[in-house]
């Protein structure tokens, strides 16, 4: 009898796992279960080119239908898993079917964190995570409309940029004192805040949302003790790891499915990869990452472990965001205690911020500076000491920092 692998979750990590399992020589059966109507697709463009209407839906799909056919992967879409029976080694689906497995891979991703405040259920309040979410938002996302965006993270600011471009009146409400406060340094926050203001976006910092009002649909947002009229609302306040299925099956979970460096859960027959995992980063710190890099790399490591070739996961995380004509690229994980070195001039809209820890590069944030980003990423991986003064000195070509 050939071995059976079941993958729950048809996203970036799931698609990568199918590809990597075959590349690693797995010849048994693969079944992938996804609760959306679509095969695995790229989520990053949803809040960027897809929302702007510059990328047609077929271009979002990570693989062609022929890929799954050729890989011998059965795709069960519009299908949800209800429970994992670890004793019987079977996944129970909500439609009653049971899928037996020898090894199980959980790539269940994340779900948006929802606002809980008065009026939060009013029509006209949108979230953004799936193709269906964007298609629903599109109908209301029209020139001249007043959009209130809750949360100045990646999603909020990317939608703000697209909204400003499309001629909406955009106001962003952020509870903390700066934009993208979880993701970037204060200098970078200041730069992006100013860019949004220049584009006509109104930023309300230190302004928590208290609720929404409206007659049958959202008409006002209540924030910072004031009421603001609006036609629609987009909420982007973070993502929670989808670990319910795993935790109900008794697997160790803690805002995410806990996995070891080989993507193995607390059950040796069950692996997990991507946004849904809580794992050990390369610095030995437990974390949950929401990014393409982790989805791809952890899925590759899961495939290695599932085919008997475990290899410790310690890749440098990387992220990107597109806002207006600005490409922000980040590698590594910064800490507030890092010392910073600025390379280039924010006024030129091309610069980078290097984060140094113990004399080594721990993270880099680059705006329209792909070279700085690539070199920074390499420096992080190599862990070579670099002087802050050399980083800041534009007469030193960035490539020379490697030597």
């Amino acid at each position, binding site marked *: 009898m050939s071995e059976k692998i079941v993958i729950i979750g048809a996203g*970036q990590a799931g698609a*990568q796992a199918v590809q990597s399992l075959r590349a690693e020589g797995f010849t048994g059966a693969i079944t992938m279960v996804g609760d959306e109507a679509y095969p695995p697709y*790229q989520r*990053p463009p949803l809040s960027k080119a897809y929302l702007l209407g510059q990328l047609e839906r077929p*271009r979002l799909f*990570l*693989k*062609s239908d*022929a*890929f799954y056919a*050729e890989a011998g992967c059965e795709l069960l879409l519009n299908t949800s898993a209800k429970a994992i029976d670890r004793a019987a080694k079977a996944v129970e689906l909500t439609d009653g079917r049971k899928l037996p497995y020898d090894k199980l891979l959980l790539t269940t991703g994340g779900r948006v964190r929802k606002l809980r405040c008065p009026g939060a259920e009013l029509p006209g309040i949108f979230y953004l995570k799936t193709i269906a979410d964007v298609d629903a938002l599109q109908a209301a996302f029209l020139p001249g409309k007043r959009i209130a965006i809750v949360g100045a993270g990646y999603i909020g600011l990317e939608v703000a940029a697209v909204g400003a471009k499309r001629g909406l009146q955009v106001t962003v409400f952020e509870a903390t004192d700066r934009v993208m406060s979880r993701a970037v340094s204060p200098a970078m926050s200041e730069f992006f805040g100013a860019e949004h203001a220049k584009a006509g976006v109104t930023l309300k910092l230190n302004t928590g949302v208290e609720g929404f009002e409206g007659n049958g649909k959202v008409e006002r947002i209540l924030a910072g003790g004031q009421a603001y009229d609006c036609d629609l609302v987009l909420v982007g306040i973070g993502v929670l790891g989808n670990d319910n299925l795993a935790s109900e099956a008794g697997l160790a979970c803690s805002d995410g499915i806990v996995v070891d460096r080989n993507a193995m859960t607390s059950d040796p027959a069950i692996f997990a990869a991507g946004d849904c995992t809580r794992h050990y980063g390369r610095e030995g710190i437990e974390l949950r990452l929401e990014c*393409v890099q982790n989805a*791809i790399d952890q899925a590759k490591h899961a495939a290695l472990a599932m085919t008997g070739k475990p290899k410790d996961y310690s890749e440098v995380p*990387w992220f*990107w965001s597109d806002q207006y004509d600005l*490409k922000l*690229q980040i590698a590594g994980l910064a800490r507030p205690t890092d010392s910073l070195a600025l390379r280039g001039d924010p006024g030129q809209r091309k610069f980078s911020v290097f984060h140094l820890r113990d004399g080594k590069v721990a993270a880099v944030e680059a705006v329209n*500076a*792909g*070279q700085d*980003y*690539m*070199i920074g990423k*390499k420096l992080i991986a190599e862990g070579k000491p670099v002087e802050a003064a050399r980083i800041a000195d534009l007469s030193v070509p960035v*490539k020379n920092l490697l030597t």
Partner: protein
Amino acid sequence: MKRAFKAIFIEDNGVKHTIEVPEGWSLMEGAVKHLVPGIDADCGGACACATCQVYVDPEWSAKLPKKNDMEETMLDFAPLVQPNSRLSCQLRMSAALDGIVLRIPKNQH
């Protein structure tokens, strides 16, 4: 309907894949949709991984837009790079590229 043009991908072992790529799509997207082996395209086209490298036949090189900073840097760190290396995610199909010939490196990692 969008117009589509031909691209010819040739694997390291000589196997030839002639595919149709819609105008405006990247050559990488065309290759991935048609299962051309050897175009890994890990990042999905964000110019972040350099796993969609191709060698462009000389007669076609001149018809391509110049490499930008980002592509140049990504290629600096890719394996098996040659002077005619390009990242196929950065090349958009157009009438001028109808019939373009691209060779695929032995590996992308």
